[in-house]
């Protein structure tokens, strides 16, 4: 009898530490695991787990976290789909609409972003009306809509932000573009002048020297009655002359594209630093 009791005691105590049976697929455990993945920033897996929990009666917090997860992995379309499922009775409704505004913005769908702003933030009352107004005003910098007055644009921003936004406004209203027509004309009159106008001094001087050199060689050979060589140099000179005009026009277009790219880049960096005027959520604390 004593021995039997000892066997039971040893047998059970050895295994006691591992004796918890785990149902990996119970809703509670799926949620715990999904939260763990979410906090590990493994958003795609976390979303797949959360989606297993979604029935017809969708939990709005889950939907919000799924939307956030997709937006973190830059799947903005799926993010939007989930945010749009959050109903107006939810505590996450205002946040979801702000996130939708941000995601349409990031998708480059400024029209939809503007309509979300008008429908959800301008007409209705929303706790993020200032933040949404700030983000909405940035649409003017990206899109081709006519700029309103500077005062209207900078109005919702605080003093520090106003300085930066004001400089963006100045840039947008008066961008430092160069005319491709002027560049072409200048190069037609003085080879290389178009490039110099664009600030490409090295290219401009080279184009001037090469075209001038071929012109001189053509002239010199005609003078010496070397007609064949003279025509070769004439052809080469004409080729360089025409190429330089074309190059100056193309360079002006590239210059303008670069200016616009840099502007958009600085807008994106600024907005990214500001988290697009959306709050940081602390689900992992």
């Amino acid at each position: 009898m004593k021995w039997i009791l000892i066997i039971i005691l040893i047998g059970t105590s050895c295994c006691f530490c591992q004796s918890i049976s785990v149902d990996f697929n119970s809703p509670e455990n799926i949620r715990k695991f999904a939260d763990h993945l979410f906090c590990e920033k493994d958003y795609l897996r976390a979303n797949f787990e959360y989606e297993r929990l979604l029935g017809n009666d969708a939990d709005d917090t889950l939907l919000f976290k799924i939307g956030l997860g997709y937006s973190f992995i830059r799947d903005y379309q799926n993010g939007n789909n989930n945010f749009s499922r959050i109903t107006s009775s939810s505590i996450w409704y205002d946040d979801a609409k702000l996130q939708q505004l941000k995601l349409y913005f990031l998708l480059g769908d400024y029209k939809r972003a503007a309509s979300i702003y008008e429908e959800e933030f301008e007409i209705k009352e929303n706790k993020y009306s200032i933040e949404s107004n700030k983000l909405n005003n940035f649409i003017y910098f990206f899109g081709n809509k006519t700029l309103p007055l500077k005062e209207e644009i900078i109005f919702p921003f605080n003093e520090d932000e106003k300085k930066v936004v004001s400089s963006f406004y100045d840039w947008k209203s008066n961008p430092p573009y160069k005319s491709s027509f002027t560049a072409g004309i200048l190069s037609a009159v003085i080879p290389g002048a178009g490039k110099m106008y664009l600030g490409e001094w090295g290219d401009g001087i080279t184009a001037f020297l090469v075209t001038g050199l071929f012109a001189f060689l053509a002239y010199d050979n005609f003078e010496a009655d070397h007609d064949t060589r003279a025509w070769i140099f004439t052809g080469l000179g004409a080729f360089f002359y025409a190429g330089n005009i074309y190059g100056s026009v193309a360079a002006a277009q590239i210059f303008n594209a670069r200016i616009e790219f840099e502007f958009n880049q600085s807008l994106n960096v600024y907005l990214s630093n500001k988290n697009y005027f959306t709050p940081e959520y602390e689900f992992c604390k």
Partner: protein
Amino acid sequence: MNFVSKLKLILVSVFIITYSQYAQTDFDAQYDFAKSLYEQEQYFDAITELKRLFFFDKSEKYIYSGNMFIGECYKQGGKFSDAIHFVTFAQINAASEKEIYDAGIEIIRLNILRRTTSQALKLIDSLESNPEFESKKSELNYWRGWAYIFSDDWENAAIEFSLIDANHELKIFSEKVDEEQYSVGFAKTISYFIPGAGQFYTGEYLSGLISLGWNVLWGYLTIEAFINDRVFDGIIIGSLLWMRFYRGNFQNAEEFALQKNLEMSNKALNYLQYQYQGLKP
């Protein structure tokens, strides 16, 4: 206590003990499930299930093998850096010298595939310097050889394989590839003396002839201009045209040699990938 009561007590105790083992079976089953997903090439799901196992199994029984498995899944998906992250984690949690070594070799193989050759060589050196792995010299030379193969250094690869066996299959193969490769320096140098010769050497005859033709033409015109005292013409044609084609000639020869060597290396790697039966990174 009579015999029947004793028997009952024994049966109950057996039941309690076996029942208490069930939880362990759950984790084993989960691990087997993840493995089966891996075998079905569902790597994403396999990783999810292994992560689930880690999350619930507080005993950390599978921390080594599970992380090695995750590394394998990422490796199959071509995500070598992620794979290295998990295999390194497995190595940190290794319970024996053998596990440390196995994980180390896996990290080396991943570095070879990722073409971070210097890192792979450094890790091989570090394993080699460990007296525990004295007996593993041949295996380490083998992977060093592979690291050289992936960095396109067939000569050194042949040397490493020869340290294992003078007639090692990969030694003979590497030597063959090395011998077949063109000398980039030679292709360039002969083009300095005879324009187009480097292209001929790499088997690009048409390109060689065109290069030779251009150089003869502009060379002739330059010399002719100087002979006829048209010094300015001579300088301009010589510098703008002849020199341009002369420089293009040897640069082109160098490029051909490099390109042909790359083609040969890729062909050799393709052969190793599909035909070679031995261990591969």
